[in-house]
């Protein structure tokens, strides 16, 4: 009996557990990437004990891959040498870690997945517990196969209604961030539910779980349903049969009800994700770069929306428009269906997969005084490059509209 997070942990613990309890449980998968693996290796070496089960370990190179400079190259070589030495074979460099984790079938309802990356919350979209941890804890988990957790209280976000045309999960989430604030979910499990969620396809659910991190949440969960199980079968390598775990007589700390039909296209303005505004309030603001990428919004369906808006048109001559598909699988599908050609014909720069410009290392770094409109999840000062640049967050449709006009633009007239 309990909230979704309590139900997930109760199954792992083999007894009923409740918020506030501290547990030591087996984790199913331990994720890290090129940025966070080196420090995990350091903790691992200090402990000086063998790996518990290398099949639980998954390592991605995505944050700066292929290495854009010598420092990154050296770190990646170290990581790869370590994997060879330890016989770790679950190694991927086919896109942003979180997307590849889903595609490769590591994320299944009820699984407990810990990641050395703050957006490991993403996995909640498929009914898994996913949360971000420091590198030391990842090194510890390599040795023990376990992690300690304090079972969190839950804030239920009850979303009802149908969104207006031109309003996507991204707009809903930016709206939520504006309402709750950047620490509105600290320590908490955010449980998204309601009839809006029931109808929402997985690629959109992912946006909500992914950005639950932005309001400080430990995890952002959505109970698995038929939509989830179909998605797992069709879109991923997870081919087992999975339980649909639901909250049972849950005790919520708080329930926040939102009618999504009242939400219009949103933008999270520089420099905080909770600086949320209706797009029309900032319409006309010039943008130097439009970046369509990241674990938040660079899935096939996102590229489809962008291509739909850009088809047969040309992007603004003074605006860099960069498209970084979230994974190789998505890239390939977009190539085969002709989306990539549409984007390139419109003047977009289509890059290889991965985190790309998201952390300002390569693939679209911002100069001082530049402003970007992007489909990312974060707009911290300096994240994409210069601390004197500005980042605005919006949906793929809003990003595509800005790509055409070179300024923040209401996407609705562009959506057929």
């Amino acid at each position, binding site marked *: 009996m309990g909230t979704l997070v309590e139900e997930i942990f109760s199954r792992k613990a083999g007894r009923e557990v409740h918020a506030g309890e501290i547990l030591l449980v087996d984790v199913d998968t331990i994720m890290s990437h090129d940025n966070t693996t080196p420090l995990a290796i350091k*903790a691992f070496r200090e402990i000086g004990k063998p790996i518990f089960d290398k099949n639980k370990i998954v390592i991605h190179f995505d944050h700066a891959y292929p290495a854009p400079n010598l420092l990154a190259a050296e770190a990646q070589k170290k990581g790869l040498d370590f994997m060879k030495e330890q016989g770790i074979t679950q190694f991927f460099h086919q896109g942003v870690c979180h997307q590849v984790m889903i595609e490769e079938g590591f994320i299944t309802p009820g699984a407990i997945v810990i990641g050395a990356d703050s957006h490991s919350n993403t996995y909640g979209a498929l009914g898994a517990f996913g949360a971000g941890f420091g590198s*030391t804890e990842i*090194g510890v988990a390599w040795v023990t196969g376990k992690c300690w957790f304090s079972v969190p209280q839950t804030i239920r976000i009850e979303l009802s209604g149908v969104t207006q045309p031109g309003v996507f999960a991204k707009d809903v989430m930016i709206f939520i961030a504006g309402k709750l604030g950047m620490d509105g979910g600290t320590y908490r499990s955010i449980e998204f539910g309601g009839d809006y969620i029931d109808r929402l396809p997985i690629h959109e659910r992912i946006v909500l779980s992914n950005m639950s991190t932005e309001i400080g949440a430990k995890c952002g969960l959505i109970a698995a349903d038929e939509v989830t199980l179909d998605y797992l079968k069709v879109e991923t390598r997870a081919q087992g049969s999975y339980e649909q775990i639901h909250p049972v007589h849950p005790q919520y700390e708080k329930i926040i009800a939102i009618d999504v039909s009242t939400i219009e296209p949103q933008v999270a303005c520089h420099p905080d994700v909770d600086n949320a505004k209706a797009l029309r309030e900032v319409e006309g603001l010039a943008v130097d770069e439009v970046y369509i990428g990241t674990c938040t919004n660079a899935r096939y369906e996102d590229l489809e929306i962008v291509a739909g808006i850009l088809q047969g048109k040309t992007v603004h001559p003074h605006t860099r428009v960069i498209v970084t598909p979230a994974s190789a699988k998505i890239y390939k599908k977009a190539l085969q269906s002709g989306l990539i050609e549409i984007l390139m014909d419109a003047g977009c720069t289509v890059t290889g997969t991965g985190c790309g410009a998201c952390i300002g290392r390569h693939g679209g770094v911002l100069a001082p005084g530049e402003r970007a409109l992007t489909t990312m999840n974060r707009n911290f000062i300096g994240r994409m490059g210069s601390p004197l640049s500005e980042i605005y967050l919006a949906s793929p449709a809003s990003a595509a509209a800005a790509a055409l006009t070179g300024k923040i633009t209401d996407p609705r007239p562009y959506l057929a």
Partner: protein
Amino acid sequence: MGKAWTFGENMNTDEIIPGRFNITIDPLELAKNVFCEVKPDYAARVKPDDVVVGGQNFGCGSSREHAPVAIKGSQAKCVIAASYARIFFRNAINIGLPILECPAAAADITEGDEVEVDLATGKIHNLTNGHVYQARPLPAFVMKIAEAGGIVNFLKNHDVQELMA
């Protein structure tokens, strides 16, 4: 018994230890610059058994472990705050820095108060004004990690199951 050093709300990891000092992970080196911008005299004058007292959301910001390591390196006995940012909370426990959550103490203790803390019971005694506050006692496993000097050290000599035993 020690002296209280008080800090405000939302103390972020950069205010605890600015990023430019994070080139080392040596606790004693980091301790030389801990709180250098918000309380420049702290590093030189803090004594063992002194306590750091913060407000809401102590340790917010980046996930870097340098912040709790720097406080631990300064020899302070523990941190008392109204609440902690999630990753700081975990990092502090894992590196063996005792932390107590106690809004009443955080609101009432002022700079320089003489404070006595019993980590095992969570009892905080303010000898200066006579007030006693009760934080939740630290779970036994946290005490074990703290005594070992952090989870990495703990695991060198113990099996992980012993944590919860």
